[in-house]
């Protein structure tokens, strides 16, 4: 009995080794770090530009929250997120998610992982978790860098919420982390789409470009009033709808709607990716 549980224990422990290895390979890659650096540059650019410009931005111009930054540096992080959501974040997510399977295929390592044997479903799951981990880290890099730079260049103080209430700095940072969580969840559907595209080809750049194009095209559809009926089904529909998290009392309703929509996309494209990957001939 005890030896049997030791065996399953060892097995479970080493079952995680592939995930640990995937994360360490992903985050040690120079390309991943370059993407994260580019994301970190967004709040830095915003903060420095605002600091250098003599006249502050007029209210109502530029990205939301921008006019708040000069009074309160804490807003740099969330301003940078808003700037990054339509293009920069989907771009980096497209690069990482599009690379998941196609990158292994192009290196030829896919066949060796499968022969090891990694198990096709297990490998796909590990790859998706890796892409999701990248989403978490990417969003955190923007928010945390923004908060630090904002605190360094601007006064920091209690935050006035959209509802007019004022909350202390600590709670404000917690709210911003909740927004980071919201944005991370927003990117999970796109990650599943990227994973699926990645199972279709041995050329990673193709899967990356397809994912990024898909994201841009979806946002264009979302901007066309003629297609209003379609909008609630687009994975980008709730991307910027996190204002609820800046009200008192906090409302989690849009968070829930967004999460549900993303789960739908993960299920759909996860199933498509699995169906494709389980049956495909590995010829790379």
């Amino acid at each position, binding site marked *: 009995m005890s030896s049997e549980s030791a065996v399953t224990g*060892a*097995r479970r*422990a*080493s*079952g995680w*080794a*592939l995930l*640990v*290895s995937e994360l360490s*390979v992903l985050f040690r*890659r*120079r390309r991943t770090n370059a993407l994260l650096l580019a994301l970190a540059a967004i709040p830095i650019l915003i903060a420095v530009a605002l600091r250098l410009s003599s006249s502050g931005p007029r209210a109502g111009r530029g990205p939301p929250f921008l006019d708040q930054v000069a009074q309160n540096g804490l807003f740099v992080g969330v301003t940078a997120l808003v700037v990054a959501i339509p293009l920069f974040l989907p771009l980096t997510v497209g690069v990482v998610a599009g690379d998941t399977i196609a990158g292994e295929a192009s*290196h*030829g*390592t896919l*066949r*060796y*992982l*499968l*022969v*090891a*044997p*990694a*198990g096709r479903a*297990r*490998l796909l799951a590990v790859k998706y978790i890796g892409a999701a981990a990248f989403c978490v880290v990417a969003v955190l890099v923007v928010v945390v860098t923004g908060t630090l730079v904002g605190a360094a260049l601007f006064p920091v103080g209690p935050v006035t919420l959209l509802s007019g209430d004022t909350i202390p700095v600590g709670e404000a940072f917690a709210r911003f982390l909740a927004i980071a969580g919201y944005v991370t969840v927003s990117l999970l559907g796109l990650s599943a789409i990227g994973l699926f595209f990645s199972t279709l080809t041995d050329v990673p750049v193709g899967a990356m470009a397809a994912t990024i194009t898909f994201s841009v095209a979806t946002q264009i559809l979302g901007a066309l009033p003629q297609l209003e009926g379609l909008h609630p089904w687009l994975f980008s529909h709730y991307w910027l709808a996190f204002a609820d998290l800046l009200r008192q009392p906090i409302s989690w309703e849009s968070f829930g709607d967004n999460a549900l929509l993303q789960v739908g996309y993960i299920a759909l494209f996860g199933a498509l990716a699995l169906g494709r990957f389980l*049956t495909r*001939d*590995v*010829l790379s």
Partner: protein
Amino acid sequence: MTTAEFAIETAGLTKRFGAQTAVDGIDLAVPRGSVFGFLGPNGSGKTTSIRMMLGLVAPSNGTVSVLGREVPRHLPDVLPRVGALVEGPAFYPFLSGAANLHRLDTADRHASSSTRRARVSAALDRVGLSHAAGKKVHAYSLGMKQRLGIANTLLAPRELLVLDEPTNGLDPQGTREVRGLIRSLADSGSTVFVSSHLLTEIDQICTHAAVMSAGRLVAQGTLDELRGAGDAYVRVLTPDPYAARQTLRALGLGLEHPASERRTDDPARVADTELVLAPLGSIDLEPETIVAALIAGGVRVRGFSVERASLEDRFVALTGEGFDVVQ
């Protein structure tokens, strides 16, 4: 653990790519414990067959069993017992050699994490790569990558090793080392299935072989069976072929060896001489006795030897062409 007689067995195994049939109904039987040479020119379907054995590619028709279990159904049970090098080595160029092996080892969920480091360094040591363990693979030469690919198959003790063209890109010294390695693996009880388009690189180590030609299996068996056991033949260069044939026939030798006699590229052959070949069969004659008989028969002997058909001759005859020809 199953103890099937064959390490690999295929029945009617077929793979079509569109209109092209890359592997055409092959029935392969690789005995346990053998060193099995899988020979054939480039493009004859070796790698595609190997991909089907390892579950990378689904057969269009037919079945494969590996270590007694049918694949792809039993792949999770079979693959941990198999080490494979398929279509050349492939690694993450931005990781070191050791990190690459480490990464691929984590993919096997049965591989123990606690012994991983030791197993990786033992495998690197076995292929002579310890000095380059920490070097990024993009700085490796082709031969070093090939060694690393072989090291990857040695991360755990395996019942079966499938090595697709393991000597590709190796210098003669490296080729000798790989041969030695294959021998030692075979001595430790593993079955080694090794493919090559270069017969001479593996014919000294194989106990069995199969020959592929344009997707078909044209021969298989022990090496002696393939050579045609006892199929030595007499080879005479002479301007008097008719007299030579008569003399040989009088000695009880059989007819000419047709496949070999067709060859016209013999360097020893000059304008008016012809090559006469006669299988020795079971006749027990000393070479000098035959030469004496030929001279007594008035045959001007310009060249004489008693040879065994080389495997190369057999394969040229079977595949209808030289070994390096790309189809």
